[in-house]
């Protein structure tokens, strides 16, 4: 039965479409009350005192907490720099300072208004280039040196006081590369790029429900990306043993990297403990947009050494990640973003200095593509500029610089299942790259652009699963993998059905619950199909091994000569010698059935190790689990008078190794394309001079609507399948690569149309008009 590779229906589809799927907000527990958070109105301030007495006396208020009610523990992913509730200082507008639990959300909100906080305002720091100075005007974390840190950063003579990440790559002889190009009259191309502030803006805002039981165990329901990261984070925040925390993940309405930790869940838990009642917290849309982690900007300075023939031989990059008040989930971005500097290209010399700094804005978090979607903007625009400078076709130039199978990138990532060439050429064919865009009537211009991308999936990492076989031959998979909407549950179900030769509806999933389901690292980094998929196959094998051993005496055969499929166990080569799976189960005295050997539960752990890279050179052994490839191309129509950019046609050619569910991959291509278009052209968190976000609503934060997308027939998805040696059935992930090349593809198309570059995202109509006017003023003619 080949279920893997078919577009099996989403197993959660009916529940979601009919509204019966349970999300965090749907959970109602007896005696449950509601929490609201009191947030800092200042970007930088010292807290002199908090008076909660008025709030506590309000009817209906059940608990009020401040930092004084919590253990004095700093939290963080790798640099522990953040208290759950602001301790002595607040470092961004919206930072939680106190919280209230009350009978209704409205009472809790009014009570928050009654909490009096005395602040001493401190000068805020917003500019990352000021922040990184050795003598910055403001220092955010005076006690940084004392913080616990789980990651070594690059050595520096003196650490700029606001710096929390430094990473270097030193590969090859960079000076020689630039000298060679200078001597032979090649091209040196240097530019500065920037990305913008982007929010995950999931349909479901952050939220959680917390409940304590009498034995001191905390149960938390929260739509997060990783029940185990959540569990450990809660345990740390509340000073509990992890075994005292149970995290259950209901359905999740989108995450995209924004739900790695469950800070609001920890606040709800602390309130629930004090109030001795279950507490629900659901952030408002404004809180969700302004006070949860965002994709914060990068600044990239790139200088490339290119031979006359268009071969890239040296690249120098300095980048700064514009972090916020805390290092947060963005902590690894300055490292992981470097994967795109070599990208899929051969690079004899690479020199990188990559930093992350504190500023008094929203903390940096993950968002689909974790650093690579940002660095791709710089690198793949740069490739387009190089092609034009060298007068070589942009596809050809990229192909001439590509690695080949078996080589390693300048940061030692092996080019395995290396499909960049195939993705690029298929994408180019679909957009009819060889045919220039039609001319339109002024003020409209058409143009095409293309970009290549790749996306690592991080390591070290592990996934475990358990597979229980029931007497009716149905299978129950216990997994902590999370379906965020990407279709993970369907894929895993398909794998079990395939391995056991049974129908999809004979597979049942036990979804994430740390009291029941085994460890899985996270639904992130495009890792679920790859890692959990492998673990699931292995758990199936383990269960089948147990079945074969139980069946062997009955069939008078060696277990190795048996096979299990479709609810039967049979002797390989003579299928008539078989028994039913059911026959392995014996009737017990109280009418319960159990297998002769008590239980058939397969279990497995799939693990990928990695050697840590030297932060001073960026060199090491295999740094990541695998790398996925993809190319995207856009044809745009630009109005030079209004600056409007319409995407006329958009193509994604994405390599997934093996399309486990082709329709699911297509949905990733379309959905990712839409998200990428939004990031490229529309989405921008804006802040006023005090550091407050000024467009914290879906009316003002411009997630594009369907009207901004190309018409159906102009949105094309191409699935490329170059199997990976370690992927289940050869599969790689698809979740993130789909937004990596999007922005540069669109930016390059705008250049093709009107001959202007916009260096900082998003590429808004206003910036288009400005760039066009500057070009006119410079007397460059009509460009198109």
């Amino acid at each position: 039965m080949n279920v893997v590779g078919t577009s099996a229906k989403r197993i959660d589809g009916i529940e979601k479409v009919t509204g019966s799927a349970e999300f965090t907000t749907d959970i109602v527990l007896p005696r449950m009350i509601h929490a609201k958070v009191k947030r800092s109105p200042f970007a930088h301030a010292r807290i002199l005192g908090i008076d909660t007495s008025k709030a506590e006396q309000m009817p209906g208020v059940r608990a009020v907490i401040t930092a004084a009610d919590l253990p004095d523990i700093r939290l963080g992913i790798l640099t522990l720099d953040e208290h759950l509730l602001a301790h002595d200082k607040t470092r961004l507008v919206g930072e939680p300072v106190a919280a209230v639990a009350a009978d209704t959300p409205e009472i809790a909100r009014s009570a928050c208004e009654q909490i009096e906080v005395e602040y001493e305002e401190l000068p805020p720091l917003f500019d990352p280039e000021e922040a990184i100075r050795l003598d910055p005007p403001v220092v955010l974390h005076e006690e940084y040196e004392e913080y616990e840190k789980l990651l070594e950063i690059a050595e520096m003579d003196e650490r700029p006081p606001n710096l929390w990440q430094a990473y270097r790559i030193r590969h090859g002889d960079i000076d020689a590369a630039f000298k060679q190009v200078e001597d032979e009259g090649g091209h040196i191309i240097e530019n500065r790029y920037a990305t913008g502030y982007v929010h995950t803006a999931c349909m479901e805002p952050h939220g959680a429900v917390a409940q304590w039981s009498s034995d001191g165990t905390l149960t938390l329901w929260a739509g997060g990306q990783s029940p185990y990261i959540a569990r450990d984070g809660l345990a740390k925040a509340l000073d509990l043993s992890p075994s005292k925390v149970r995290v259950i993940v209901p359905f999740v309405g989108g995450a995209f990297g924004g739900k790695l930790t469950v800070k609001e869940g920890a606040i709800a838990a602390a309130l629930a403990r004090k109030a001795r009642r279950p507490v629900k917290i659901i952030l408002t849309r404004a809180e969700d947009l302004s006070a949860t982690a965002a994709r914060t900007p990068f600044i990239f300075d790139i200088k490339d050494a290119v031979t006359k023939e268009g071969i890239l031989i040296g690249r120098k990059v300095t980048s700064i990640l514009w972090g916020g008040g805390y290092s947060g989930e963005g902590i690894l971005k300055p490292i992981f973003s470097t994967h795109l500097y070599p990208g899929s290209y051969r690079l004899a010399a690479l020199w990188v200095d990559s930093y992350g700094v504190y500023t008094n804005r929203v903390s940096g978090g993950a968002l689909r593509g974790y650093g690579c979607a940002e660095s791709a903007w710089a690198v793949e625009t740069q490739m387009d500029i190089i092609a034009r400078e060298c007068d070589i076709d942009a596809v050809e130039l990229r192909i001439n610089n590509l690695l080949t199978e078996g080589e390693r990138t300048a940061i030692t990532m092996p080019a395995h299942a290396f499909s960049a060439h195939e993705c690029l050429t298929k994408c180019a064919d679909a957009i009819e790259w060889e045919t220039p865009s039609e001319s339109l009537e002024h003020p409209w211009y058409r143009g095409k652009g293309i970009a290549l991308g790749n996306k690592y999936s991080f390591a070290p990492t592990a996934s475990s699963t358990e597979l229980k076989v029931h007497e009716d031959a149905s299978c129950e998979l216990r997994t902590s993998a999370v379906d965020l909407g990407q279709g993970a549950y369907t894929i895993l179900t398909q794998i079990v059905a395939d391995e056991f030769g049974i129908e999809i509806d004979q597979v049942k999933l036990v979804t994430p619950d740390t009291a029941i389901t085994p460890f899985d690292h996270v639904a992130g980094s495009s890792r679920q199909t790859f890692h959990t998929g492998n673990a699931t196959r292995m758990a199936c094998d383990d269960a089948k091994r147990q079945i074969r051993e139980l069946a062997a005496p009955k069939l008078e055969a060696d277990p190795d000569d048996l096979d299990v499929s479709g609810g039967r166990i049979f002797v390989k080569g003579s299928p008539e010698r078989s028994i039913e799976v059911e026959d392995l189960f014996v009737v017990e005295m109280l009418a319960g059935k159990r297998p002769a050997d008590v239980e058939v539960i397969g279990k497995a752990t799939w693990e990928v190790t990695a050697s840590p890279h030297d932060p001073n050179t960026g060199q090491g052994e295999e740094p990541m689990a695998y790398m996925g490839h993809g190319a995207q191309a856009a044809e745009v129509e630009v109005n030079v008078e209004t600056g409007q950019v319409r995407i006329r046609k958009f193509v994604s050619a994405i390599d997934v190794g093996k399309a486990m569910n082709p329709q699911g991959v297509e949905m990733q291509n379309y959905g990712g394309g839409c998200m990428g278009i939004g990031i490229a052209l529309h989405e921008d968190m804006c802040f006023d001079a005090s550091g407050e976000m000024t467009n914290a609503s879906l009316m003002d934060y411009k997630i594009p609507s369907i009207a901004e997308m190309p018409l159906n027939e102009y949105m094309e998805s191409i699935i490329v399948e170059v199997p990976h040696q370690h992927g289940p059935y050869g599969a790689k992930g698809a979740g993130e690569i789909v937004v990596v090349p999007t922005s540069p593809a669109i930016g390059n198309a705008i250049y093709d149309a009107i001959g202007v570059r916009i260096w900082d995202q998003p590429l808004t109509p206003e910036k288009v008009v400005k760039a066009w006017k500057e070009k006119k003023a410079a007397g460059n003619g009509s460009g198109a």
Partner: protein
Amino acid sequence: MIDCHYLEPTTVSEACALLAEHGDGAKVVAGGQQMSLLLRNGLIQPSHLISIQHVSGLEDIAESADGVTIGAKVTLNRLIGVDNAHPTLRALSRAVEDVADQQIRNFATLGGAICEAHPASDINVVLSTLNASVKLVSASGERVVSIDDFVTDAFATAVRPGELLTEVVVPSFDLTSAAAAYRRFVLRAGDYSVVGVGTFVSLDGAGSCQDVRIVVGNCSGTPAQAQEAEGRLKGHNIVGNNALADAGDLAAAHVAPSGDPMASSEYKIDLVNVLTREALAEAVALATG
């Protein structure tokens, strides 16, 4: 929590009586599209909400020699396509097609859209372009006010406590020689306009401009007439020459919009120029076509 009385009168006079009775604390709610946001965000705390949902007689569209009268409760969706029966409303009908989205337009009323007095309102710009006026009824009588006098500032109108807007009158014009058009620019479908420009032109057979009106939206608190641009056109031949482009330049030269996070002042001025020219071109084409 929203804590107020919700009243549902069924006639205009009943509604006016309730408004008079409850004074300043009483607010009218029609489709509720803006009102629900005001309430949710705590921007107003009315003591009484007076819903006109069940008030009869505010849903008619009628045409006479003087013009078209539209009841305050006519929903925006109903205005789409209304120009088939009432060609005078062509520009209004077309403009409404792009306002907000289907769900909002199903509830949003024309009266509510006018009274909201949003500085980026497309509807008030079009109505101003068309020289429309509104009828205000109170327990003590009624009065008719032009849109230009009605909208006094951003989110501010000439409505007095106790008054209800009952209808809008769009005066008729000679459809064979005059036409109106509206152009807007949005960052995303369904958004409020960054800038909108309404134009009305009346031409004689030789292409000379007899009458013209140009109204710019979202560059100040109220719809703003571009008099300098109008001056460039009125009494001149405007077909087949630079007149419309000049008018665009002049309109742009005389607005001083404040910038916002999504669009700077400079950019809005650029848009005024482009949209004025385009809206004029469309009106001229219709008037001569």
